[in-house]
Every structure is written in structure tokens, then in C-alpha cells.
């Protein structure tokens, strides 16, 4: 089946990484899913995201690229 993967950009959720919290990241990805996003583009200039980022994307049904 074909599907359109409506997507949005992801950049590091805080310029100061120690301030990033799992709760906040999960909330942002949940918001993306609630906005009917199917896919998230992880900006190449960002960071290798935390494991909980990928875990949250799995649970929200978000494809990543």
C-alpha cells in the first residue's frame, strides 16, 4: 500500500543538551503524532539522538529519516 508520509523537521530540542529531558522529547514527538505526522526528519546538523528518542518514535508510529 502507498502512503504519504507527512513529515516535520527535528532539531535538538535544546541548544544546551544537559537541559534536554526524556519527558520533554517524548512530549514533542507525541505532539507530532497528534498532528498526524507520519515521519520525522532528523536534521543532519543536529546530534545523534538519545535512545529514548528512537524508542518514543517507535511507540508513536513515526518513521525517521
Amino acid at each position, binding site marked *: *500500500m*502507498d*502512503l*504519504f*508520509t*507527512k*513529515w*516535520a*523537521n527535528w532539531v535538538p530540542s535544546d541548544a544546551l543538551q544537559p537541559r534536554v529531558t526524556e519527558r520533554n522529547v517524548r512530549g514533542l514527538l507525541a505532539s507530532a*503524532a497528534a498532528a*498526524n*505526522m*507520519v*515521519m520525522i*526528519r532528523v536534521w543532519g546538523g543536529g546530534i545523534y539522538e538519545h535512545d529514548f528518542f528512537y*524508542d518514543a518514535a*517507535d*511507540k*508513536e*508510529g*513515526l*518513521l525517521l*529519516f
Partner: protein
Amino acid sequence: MTCDRFSPSGAPSTRVAATYSRACHNTGSDAGAQKPSESKSKAMKASASVDVQLPPGESPVYVLVKVPPGAAELWWPNGYGTRTLYNMTASFLSAGLGLRSRLDSSSKSAPVSGQASAPESSVTSTTGFRTVDLVQEPIPKPLVTRSISAVMGWTCSPSGRTGCRRMRCSRA
């Protein structure tokens, strides 16, 4: 997996096992979404193990776990179905006197023998099953002029979003 710490004396028989088990079933809130499968929920168990010799310094161990077709429920993207995830656990069991036995030797409840019963070490990660192909054919012009397409009854508009990709999901 680094096995130097387990490097035993003599010629040990070491077993590495990998298993899949259901992690969670996110039913989601995909009201109105296409139901990809009406098959009833079922636990999926697939496992494999290999006996290996571990010369010091040689750490990679590969275990192939074959998941029978249809045994796993697929992971579906947001809006298209449920996100079924599975835990994949890789366990390391030593037939020799293992690390755990040594560590627990002061405990009364510790296993005394060196039977390969409790894993020396294990790691679990979550995974889903899904085949995705990127379709790079041009989007038909009529659909472009309607902004984004209405495929499978699903619509979106370019309301400030970065873009869309056309993807095709198929049975694994």
C-alpha cells in the same frame, strides 16, 4: 558483545541465545484508520541459540533468529494501524563456572554449580517488524495541484510543513 571477561580456562562451551517476545501493543487512537490486519492478537516467540568457543580477543558472535512468516504482527505508522513492538533479548550463558556464580559465591542462595541456567549477561532492545520502500516516482500533476494527495482516503495540506514523501508499505 565483549566476552573477554568471560574468557575461561580450558575449552568452555558457551551458549548465546536470542529471543523475541512481545513488548507492548499500542492500540493507538487510529479511529477511522485502515485496519491492516484483523488477525487476533497472539504472542510471538521466536528464538535461536548457538554454542560457540570464545578465544580471547574474538568477541563478535552472530545469532540468526528466523521469525516465521505471519508470526509477528507488523509495526504500522501513525494513522495506519497499531504499533506492535517486540523485545529482543540476547543472552550469554556459560557452561563453565560463570561470572554470576563467582559474584554470588558469598550468597547462600547463589547457584553452586556451573550449569548454564541463569544468563551471565543479557541485553534487551525493542524492535518492530516492517518493510518500507521509498517510492521516488513523480507525484502525478493533478495531485500536486491539489497540494498533497488523497491516497487511501488520507489527506494533508502543505500548511507550513516541510514536505511529504511517498512511501509504500508491504508485507514483511
